[in-house]
């Protein structure tokens, strides 16, 4: 291998460099751009703190010259930073969520919704209602119904106008069942609705007792045919001890008839307009009649929709049954512990409180350590890449 002297290498490099033809307009382009973008800052007061020691790669890349392109490498670095920042933010959100999660979330709650949802809490003004509360011993009879004749017995009489009475019924029942029979009672209520050609709109159960001695409980919303409402209500009451019963029936016959008559009237008008349309000869007449027909059709469809909703409400009655088991027996207060007992229990409780504290603090500490680890990892990666690129 021959020795490469400095002179030989210098000659080689000069030879190689001279092979590149210098662009004729390169210097003039620079002058044009420099003077064109100078905008009067010839005193160099923009960032002019550059000397031999202060010239750094960062200082020269922070200020991109006009027309400078952002390379894919920069975009990739930014993407990496964005992904790292996203991971940290996600970890932070998860950590905050864990920290804020309530410690008493131990009540399993099952919620099932099925079938059309109807609100049973909106009171319907003007309808007969009654309330019966055995625990309070008060009964508030209303004019049209009595306990011996449940609302189901009242339904479809015929109005003087020949229209059958339309009644929208709702009811709520508070039922207490023996201990351990909550689930079977919920199932029996579901069976009741199914057997009556109805369906279950909503169920909610809490199977385990709460921390404050509350008993297991659940609620079922049944949608049953209006004719079967009374029978279903009676069968439901048999399943346990009825503590509170509220029913409400709203007579919507007038509204129903009104809607029907308005629809009939509008349909008649539509027929007349159709007859006029058939006789119309000019374009302007046809368009005018057509506009009226469109308006009429829109009104008819709107009223038909309201009628359908009303029909559905009177077809199915809503019965909300709240089922709960009896509350746990009240335990007699323990006798006051002696001094040694109290000291021993305080000691044990303090020990477990300490363990709880350590375990509780471990989560945030672990989160912080993991976050710092991610930041350190990304920083190390970027630092090595930067070093590799700057050499």
């Amino acid at each position: 291998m021959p020795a490469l002297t400095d002179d030989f290498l210098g000659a080689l490099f000069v030879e190689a460099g001279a092979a590149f033809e210098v662009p004729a307009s390169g210097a003039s382009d620079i002058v044009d751009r420099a003077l064109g973008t100078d905008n009067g800052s010839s005193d160099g007061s923009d960032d002019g703190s550059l000397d031999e020691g202060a010239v750094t790669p960062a200082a020269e890349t922070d200020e991109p010259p006009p027309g400078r392109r952002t390379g894919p490498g920069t975009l990739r670095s930014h993407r990496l930073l964005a992904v790292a920042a996203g991971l940290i933010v996600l970890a932070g959100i998860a950590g905050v969520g864990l920290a804020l999660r309530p410690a008493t979330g131990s009540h399993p709650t099952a919620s099932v919704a099925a079938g059309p949802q109807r609100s049973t809490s909106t009171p319907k003004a003007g309808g007969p209602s009654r309330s019966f509360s055995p625990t309070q011993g008060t009964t508030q009879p209303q004019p049209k119904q009595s306990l011996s004749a449940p609302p189901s017995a009242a339904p479809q009489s015929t109005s003087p106008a020949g229209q059958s009475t339309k009644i929208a019924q709702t009811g709520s029942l508070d039922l207490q069942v023996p201990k351990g029979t909550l689930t079977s009672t919920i199932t029996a209520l579901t069976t009741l609705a199914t057997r009556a050609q109805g369906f279950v709109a909503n169920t909610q159960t809490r199977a385990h007792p709460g921390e404050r001695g509350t008993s297991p409980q659940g609620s079922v919303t049944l949608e049953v045919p209006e004719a079967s409402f009374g029978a279903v209500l009676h069968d439901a009451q048999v399943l346990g001890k009825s503590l509170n019963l509220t029913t409400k029936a709203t007579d919507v016959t007038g509204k129903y008839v009104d809607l029907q008559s308005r629809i009939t009237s509008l349909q008649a008008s539509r027929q007349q307009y159709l007859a006029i349309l058939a006789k119309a000869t000019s374009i302007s007449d046809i368009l005018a009649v057509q506009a009226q027909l469109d308006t009429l059709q829109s009104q008819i469809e709107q009223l038909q929709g309201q009628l359908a909703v009303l029909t559905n409400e009177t077809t199915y009655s809503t019965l909300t049954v709240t089922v709960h088991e009896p509350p746990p027996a009240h335990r007699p207060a323990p006798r006051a512990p002696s001094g040694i007992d109290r000291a021993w229990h305080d000691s044990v409780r303090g020990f477990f409180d300490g363990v709880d504290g350590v375990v509780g603090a471990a989560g945030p500490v672990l989160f912080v350590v993991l976050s710092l680890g991610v930041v350190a990892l990304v920083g190390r990666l970027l630092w090595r890449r930067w070093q590799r690129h700057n050499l």
Partner: protein
Amino acid sequence: MVEQDLEAWLEQGYVPSFRTACLILGNRADAEEAVQEAFLRAWRFRASLASVSSIQPWLYRVVVNACYSKLRQEIPHRDHRADDGPLAHIAGRGSDPDTMAQHGQVAETVLHALQQLPVSLRVPVVLRYYADLSERDIALAIGRRPGTVKSRLHEARRRLGEDPSIAALADEPTLDQTGEA
């Protein structure tokens, strides 16, 4: 500093800067862009020239940084165009065709050998043997210590010596030690 200063500055430094960038980047178009960016940056920071003892290493540093930007951000991700390859736009000097071909072949050989070197070795060796900077000025230009520059130059010389095409040129009597073929 006025327009005449910039023109004088370009007249003195544009050609060596452009060819230095060509040898580092191996591409004439990229070199032209890098040098243009470098001079525009230098022009923007011209106010600090008063505190600079020698403008040459400072200017080379700006050029080298512009070349680094090209190498780091754009060139690795770019689709090579047919007429813009590393060895494009190389023309040999001389009047007769044989001499031109010989010079062109030497230039291609050197450029190919330089492209085989990593950038960390390519930059100092180009600054040393083309721009004729001292090790201290190279250290200033690339932001490294003189000891680092010395070791990199040594490693670059070793690798160039191992390149068979460079070794063949060293054996040929056509290129004398003054660079005249």
